[in-house]
């Protein structure tokens, strides 16, 4: 638990500053995994530049026995391994905190702070003394700081040893070097510093039945389990790892044993427009198809999205949001595509959108997206962001119900078509606003012309007003009705009826939860609703109207969620206040608390981050 200084055993955050392309990712992964295996909830965030090699990169690890996963901007320890970013890194250490650095080279006195403890370990020199070859020296330098941290943070050495054994079981020489580096770092720290520091680890049992995974990998797994057979994509940060993971899973699980041939087809398209077209073509044929992209890709795909909407073709899009507009900051996070995905394309369009908050929901919502897209015959988006997609999150182990069967929606089979006198694509036979569709190649009676141009309910080209209106009105009702089938909002209520509420979405969740707990400890109760799907159903409106004031927390400048709520529910404007943060870092509880402090009455003005 935290003490007055805001940190303590199993409650602190630290940051490793390195140079990208030097093997620091492995060392950081080792650290994160060791802490997780000690049973302590952790989260890791990779802060990387839009570059391949040579620029500063940071890895932030938050240790939280209470299970708080939001980013903490208070770094009690910085491992400064990159002289290029020393000044900035040292500035970011919380007062009273520690800097671990490579003392082979003397630290510039200008950088020293009196309120911070500097722990110098001659890492480079020790590597030169103990290892041969420049490459291994660079790699072992990182492992050596891990060793120093083992002593400083009281990381369980047996856990680390076990991990090294697992990783290098086939390569004894590598295991030996790694173990030597750990030992040297640890021994130096123990000899020269008071170990362990006040910020340290103690084994717990909070990670049992949990795993650590990124949102993109989980989403890819969802696509696999949903039975997707066609994937089309164009590489774009931060969605690339989604298709990479899907490819790997297909290579592992989708090779037909009898023939050695593939039960999937992944196409790297020439651009995002083509990727969207391929998804639509494949879905038109009756396959489950998807494309992962980011904001710029959705902009490019807009024309095709409108076609899929009007021609009523199921299609699944993953938008792993990054900072916009335009090229923006490709390696920073944001939630700036909410309106884009809700209404993509010219004319009157509206789409089904799902908003996962963590990798578990990425998996579940990926599966749901295919079911919804095919049931409602319409484009369906799963909108996450860079922080969820590319960072490691602790989640309960994923479960799968073997009884699950894909909902393919209203599709007429050959037998059914045999019995039909004449098939008309866009007639609302059952009164549920959804027509029956037919797949090419199945039966001659099923033939019709799919077109983005004006069409009547019989599927014929039209320029007639009433005929055109009849179809678009039905499509509006059809997509609206999906509101009752998308994931319901997650609502947290305090014991008594709270006057105030927080509303948020996606990755903001963790910071909002933490802020809400802070407020509760101070005797301030706020309810909280996390929207998980669009169109909004009536539970969303009910939450808004049943509170005196609601604060909409989101990571974009123009209050997109707040605007969506005003557009799509009957909630009056005055009731919805806004708290935004859009600087590109993941949201922290401080953003929420500071935003509230500015806007809530004096009785609660004491809340500070």
């Amino acid at each position: 638990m935290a003490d007055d200084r805001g940190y303590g055993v199993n409650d602190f955050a630290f940051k490793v500053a390195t140079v990208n392309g030097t093997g620091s990712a492995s060392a950081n992964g080792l650290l994160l995994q060791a802490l997780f295996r000690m049973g302590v909830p952790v989260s890791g965030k990779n802060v990387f530049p839009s570059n391949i090699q040579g620029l500063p990169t940071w890895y932030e690890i938050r240790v939280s026995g209470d299970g708080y996963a939001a980013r903490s901007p208070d770094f009690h320890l910085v491992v400064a391994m990159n002289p290029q970013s020393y000044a900035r890194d040292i500035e970011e250490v919380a007062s009273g905190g520690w800097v671990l650095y490579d003392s082979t080279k003397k630290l510039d006195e200008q950088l020293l702070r009196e309120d911070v403890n500097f722990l110098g370990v001659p890492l480079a020199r020790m590597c030169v003394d103990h290892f041969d070859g420049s490459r291994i020296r660079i790699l072992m330098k990182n492992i050596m700081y891990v060793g120093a941290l083992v002593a400083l943070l009281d990381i369980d050495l047996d856990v680390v040893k076990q991990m090294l054994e697992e990783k290098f079981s086939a390569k004894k020489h590598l295991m030996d070097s790694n173990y030597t580096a750990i030992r040297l770092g640890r021994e130096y720290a123990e000899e020269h510093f008071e170990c362990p520091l006040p910020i340290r680890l103690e084994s717990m049992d909070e990670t049992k039945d949990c795993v650590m995974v990124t949102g993109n990998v989980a989403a890819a797994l969802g696509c696999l389990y949903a039975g997707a057979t066609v994937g089309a994509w164009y590489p774009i940060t931060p969605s690339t790892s989604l298709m990479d993971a899907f490819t790997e899973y297909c290579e592992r699980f989708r090779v037909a044993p009898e023939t050695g041939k593939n039960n999937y087809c992944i196409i790297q398209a020439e651009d995002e427009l083509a990727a969207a077209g391929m998804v639509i073509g494949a879905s038109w044929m009756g396959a489950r198809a998807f494309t992962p992209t980011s904001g710029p890709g959705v902009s490019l795909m807009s024309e095709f999205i409108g076609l899929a909407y009007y021609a009523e073709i199921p299609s699944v899009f993953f938008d792993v949001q990054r900072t916009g507009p335009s090229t923006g900051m490709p390696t920073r996070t944001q939630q700036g595509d909410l309106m884009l995905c809700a209404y993509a394309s010219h004319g009157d369009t509206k789409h089904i959108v799902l908003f996962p908050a963590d990798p578990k929901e990425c998996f579940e919502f990926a599966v749901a997206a295919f079911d919804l897209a095919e049931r409602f015959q319409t484009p369906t988006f799963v909108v996450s962001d860079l922080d969820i997609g590319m960072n490691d999150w602790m989640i309960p182990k994923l479960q799968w119900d073997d009884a699950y069967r894909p909902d393919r929606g209203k599709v007429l089979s050959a037998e059914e078509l045999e019995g039909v006198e004449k098939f008309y694509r866009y007639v609302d036979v059952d009164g549920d606003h959804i027509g029956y569709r037919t797949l090419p190649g199945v039966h001659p009676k099923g033939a019709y012309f799919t077109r983005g141009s004006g069409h009547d309910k019989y599927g014929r080209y039209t320029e007639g007003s009433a005929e055109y209106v009849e179809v678009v009105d039905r499509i509006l009702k059809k997509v609206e009705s999906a509101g009752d089938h998308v994931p319901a909002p997650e609502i947290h209520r305090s014991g008594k009826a709270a006057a105030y509420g927080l509303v948020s979405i996606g990755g903001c969740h963790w910071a909002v939860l933490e802020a809400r707990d802070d407020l509760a400890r101070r005797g301030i109760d706020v309810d909280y609703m996390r929207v998980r799907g669009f169109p909004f159903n009536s539970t969303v409106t009910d939450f808004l109207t049943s509170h005196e004031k609601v604060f909409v927390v989101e990571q974009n400048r123009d209050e997109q969620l707040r605007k969506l709520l005003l557009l799509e529910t009957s909630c009056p404007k005055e009731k919805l206040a806004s708290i935004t943060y859009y600087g590109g870092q993941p949201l922290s509880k401080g953003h929420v608390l500071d935003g509230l402090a500015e806007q809530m009455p004096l009785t609660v003005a004491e809340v500070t981050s």
Partner: protein
Amino acid sequence: MSYIAKPVARHPKQPVNALGLTTRDYEGTMSTLCAGCGHDSVTAALIQAFWELDVEPHRLAKLSGIGCSSKTPTYFVRDAHGFNSVHGRMPSIAAGANAANQDLLYVGISGDGDSLSIGLGQFCHVIRRNVNMLYVLENNGVYGLTKGQFSASADVGTKSKQGEVNKQGPIDAASVALTLGATFVARSFSGDKEQLVPILEAGLRHKGFAFVDVISPCVTFNDHVGSTKSYAHTRVHMHEVIETDFVPLRSEITTKYEDGATRAVRMHDGSTLTLRKIDGEYDPTDRVAVIDYLGRIMKRGEIPTGLLYLEESGQDMHSVSNTVDGPLVDVPYEALCPGSAALAELQKDWW
């Protein structure tokens, strides 16, 4: 324009194919194109080709972009699913559809507007992917549907109907296809059904991407004096380099050719294509020589026609992806979902 269905009357003496169908069974709705439009002749040639090849109507997938030519899929094979998509982007729809179901017969109809400006990127990449389909580019040098602007295939010096002179160099689709590695490249003329039908048949039977560039004059906007895509100009300047004859499986070969001048090509489904050189040493299987030869003919102001290049390797996008035989849409869900035990197992990698 409205939907004008044709009455399905059948003349008792109309010949039937192996499926018992007449050519009327391969028609669609009434064309609403201008009287005399080249595209209607191409449509008629396609209908003839489908009929002769005993194509099962519902096993055809007809795709198009936007433009006058892209309207034509409604005018043939009413019993096939059609997809009139967006301008210049039909190739991606075709690639995705083919990825999902490789067993249907794919025909994409496009125009010089649709394929050579907005669609140039997708046109090039669908060739690289070697998607198994027939791609017919109905080429008239103008944007007909938007009233007569020059397209990217318009020759330098040609005059628009308003008298404007085109100054930018043309993109020759057949040359582009050849350079990009297309495995079947042909050019024909809407006014020469005798040449066009066998080429279309060969294209339909070719495994891989089959490209046919058809000069298809626009009577309304580009058939005047000064146009290099008019009926008059084409008839005078077209230069057949190779004569194509297609022999479907069930037909007997009735024509005899002299040795040396003729080459018979066996298609992957067993049907036969015969190519007869008209022009000296023309070798339709030597890509570099073909590119060079065509360049020289075009420099003279002539339009080389015929089945210009053929590479019948039996490969397509699926060979490269090593996809299962048969449609992906028919693979049962049980074969696609690894199940709960596998999920538990793979999560062991997740720390």
